[in-house]
């Protein structure tokens, strides 16, 4: 093609403490195409897009927009260069109208007044041009999710963007809305707008994209034409097989049931079921994996099991004891451990010293507590033990948690849960965003605990991790457990089909 690329990323590298999020990423996006970027959670897609949108600055590498090298310092610079982003979580003020939201931050003025008339005309013109019907005077709170997304897209176009980044745009849409969105994207393409489409829903990507770049562990693995690949091949590219394999050997599953979940259901505030009719058991020495695209009820399942979200239906049993109505503290004390999905949000007190972080979740038990008192000596001794057994690299147990790299923070969390020898461990994304070495040592800890009789519920976006570690593997989709697969036979490709709902649809038709 003689045309200049709309966007060209060359050798983009971005490191965070302990993690290389992007490692020599190269992508060329032709003007007027829909270019999909696919990869697992944590593969570095979001970091890359934040770099392209000026929210992060790369450590090295160059960005060219329409052939010209750019150095974005903020999203403002990106917008000025015609690059706009529609976030996965909408950034709209609910109590303002569509029009007010669209002009917010770049209001056209007549002297001291906002020129609403001009703005309204421009918005109407945009929605006509791109075939996106939208009444500028409705309140955002009255819009459907699909309409809100349209408002976001028009907002970006209003600011003059000719290159649109869509971050997981279908994550929040129902199938009909997905159809509409795809129609809109085709219209945008027709009008010469370039779309960069981030997703891990492979069937959708194959349908809408003109070209697809696969990212794995921060690196660009391949750029392919959708016509040349199948969903299966894409999944294989996404997952790869270069990483150390998280395999477990002979089964340690026993007959003793540790965790029984029956008919569990969780409802959203508006009455929708976020989790429905979920039933499973986990035995001593068993790892039960749950595969699924993020946002299909995994978070609600964990919250219901640890007792921080009210459940609408079902029962939970620990051993023979019904713990459905127990408080979080009682569940913790009874032997349920928890490795949260996001260590900063739920796992650590970043400003507190390591030894206090080691207590978190176990503050009511020995050796951390003696009655109502904190046992500082016991706590510090236990923390020393965690640090040495789980190889947490730290200047000492008095160091603040924020001073550690992500991998070492994670090792501390895994260590504090494991050393307490829980009966049941709920682990979400135990190796997300940490380097290969730390990942291997977390897997190692999980395997040893399993052999010692731990019942583990593993929720992960890393299919290889799930397949390698799980004794039993379920797929969650739309808040339900839709398939139980044989972990020893299933391929990531097949799993991917269940996770995206493709396999279900095949069976139905």
């Amino acid at each position, binding site marked *: 093609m003689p045309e200049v690329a709309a966007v060209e990323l060359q050798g983009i590298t971005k490191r965070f*403490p302990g993690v290389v999020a992007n490692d020599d990423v190269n992508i060329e996006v032709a003007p007027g195409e829909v270019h999909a970027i696919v990869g697992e959670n944590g593969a570095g897609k979001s970091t890359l897009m934040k770099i392209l949108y000026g929210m992060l600055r790369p450590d090295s590498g160059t960005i060219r927009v329409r052939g010209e090298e750019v150095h974005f310092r903020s999203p403002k610079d990106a917008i000025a260069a015609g690059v706009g982003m529609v976030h996965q979580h909408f950034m709209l003020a609910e109590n303002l109208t569509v029009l007010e939201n669209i002009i917010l931050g770049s209001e056209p003025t007549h002297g001291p007044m906002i020129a609403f008339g001009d703005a309204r005309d421009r918005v109407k013109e945009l929605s006509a041009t791109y075939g996106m019907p939208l009444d500028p005077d409705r309140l955002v709170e009255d819009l459907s999710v699909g309409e809100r997304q349209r408002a976001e897209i028009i907002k970006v176009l209003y600011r003059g963007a000719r290159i649109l980044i869509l971050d997981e745009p279908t994550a929040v849409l129902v199938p009909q809305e997905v159809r509409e969105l795809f129609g809109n994207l085709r219209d945008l393409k027709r009008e010469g707008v370039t779309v960069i489409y981030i997703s891990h829903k492979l069937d959708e990507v194959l349908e809408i994209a003109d070209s697809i770049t696969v990212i794995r562990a921060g690196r660009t693995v391949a750029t392919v034409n959708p016509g040349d690949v199948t969903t299966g091949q894409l999944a294989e590219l996404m997952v790869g097989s270069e990483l*150390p394999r998280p395999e477990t050997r002979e089964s340690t599953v026993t007959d003793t049931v540790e965790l029984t979940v029956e008919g569990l259901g969780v409802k959203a505030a508006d009455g929708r079921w976020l989790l429905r009719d979920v039933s499973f058991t986990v035995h001593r020495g068993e790892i039960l994996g749950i595969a699924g695209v993020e946002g299909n009820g995994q978070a609600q399942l964990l919250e219901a099991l*640890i007792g*921080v979200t009210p459940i609408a239906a079902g029962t939970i049993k620990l051993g023979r004891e019904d713990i459905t109505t127990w*408080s*979080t*503290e009682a*569940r*913790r*004390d009874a032997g349920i451990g*928890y490795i*949260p999905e996001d260590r900063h*949000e*739920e*796992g*650590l*007190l*970043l*400003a*507190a010293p390591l030894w*206090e972080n080691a*207590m*978190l*979740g*176990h*503050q*009511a038990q020995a050796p951390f*507590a003696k009655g*109502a*008192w*904190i046992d*500082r000596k016991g706590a510090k001794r236990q923390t020393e033990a965690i640090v040495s057994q789980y*190889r947490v*690299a*730290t*200047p000492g147990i008095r*160091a*603040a948690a*924020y*001073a*550690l*790299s992500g991998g*070492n923070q994670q090792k501390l969390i895994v260590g504090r849960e494991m050393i307490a020898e829980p009966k049941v461990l709920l682990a979400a994304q135990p190796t997300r965003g940490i380097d*290969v*070495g*730390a990942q*291997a*040592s977390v*897997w*190692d800890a999980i*395997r040893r605990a399993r052999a010692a009789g731990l019942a583990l519920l593993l929720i992960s976006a890393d299919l290889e991790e799930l397949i390698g570690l799980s004794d039993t593997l379920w797929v969650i989709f739309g808040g339900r457990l839709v398939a139980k697969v044989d972990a020893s036979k299933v391929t990531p490709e097949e799993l991917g089909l269940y996770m995206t709902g493709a396999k279900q649809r095949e069976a139905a038709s």
Partner: protein
Amino acid sequence: MKVRRAALWLLAPIAAIAFSLLVSSIALLLIHQNPFTAFGNMVKYGTQGNQIISIINRAAPLFLSAVAVAIGFKMNLFNIGVEGQYYLAALLAASVGAAVHLPPVLHVTLILVTAMTVGAVWAGIAGVLKVTRGVSEVISTIMLNFIATGIGSYLLLNYLKRPTAASDLATRTREIPKSGLFPSLDKLLGITNPNEPLSGFLLVAIAVGIAYYVVVWRTRFGFNLRATGLNAQAARVSGVNPGAMVIQTMLISGAVAGLVGMLYLLSFFHAYTLDFPTGLGFSGIAIALVGRNNPVGIAAASLLFAFLEVSAQILDLNGIPKEVIQIMQGVIILSVVVAYELVRRLVEAQDVRAAAQRTREPAAPLEGVAA
């Protein structure tokens, strides 16, 4: 390392005080006064024996008020209602104290327990509203201040007022008998002929300060409190019940707030009067901020604020408006917040760098891979 770190944290308030001296000097120069004379006089006057006693007497209530606020601050709970809590507590405790005759220790205990209960109940209302109805405690405690004033005035005028002759215009509660008053420390410390006695209530304030440290830093409850303040979501999944924590913390904070007016009541006023000191609750917020919720820091900040108030009395005698110390207090509060944030960032950056250097791992992959 530890010493350097402490010095760094100390630097922040010192810089804030220096800056406030600078700003108030400019203010003084603008009204054609010599700042050196003014500050010199303040120091000379404020360090005399009688004034030191006065400073300590003033600092103790400020300290209690700041501790009441700080307990909430440690879990990001903002009790802005110490003002109303100590007002109602002082009024009702004064009335209860005047209504009974008991042996000395018991009498004082009853008055203090009444004050703490009233403060706890009044603060507890805000806690219950937050947990059951999601009302921000900032709003509810501020509004409860106004309600406290209203209810207090009504009770005082209609029920608690000392019956007076028509010629006596002072509205006040009845006098607390001698058995209900707090002794002074003068005899114990051999202080002779002071302008005002050194109140024994100082010991209560010190005890509350020690209890504050022990509860917040040494107990499980305190750990849960601090964990909630640092990361509410992490605390929740660790087993802390957020609702229970809010209510318990508000009750404790209110109980301490109830003690704020007791030094004045039991050592000086002996009854609730219309000229009972006000504003201590709001000063407490500022002092907790300047003292970084740390018991020693709060004590130092209380003494500093009390020193400024007492020593400023000399300024009027020299024809200098003593309001200059309000400029100083304001500037200290504002600049210390900025200074603490700067130090926090500096310390954090240092820590991250130090940890990275001291833990540099070998490039080889970990042994776990092979296992």
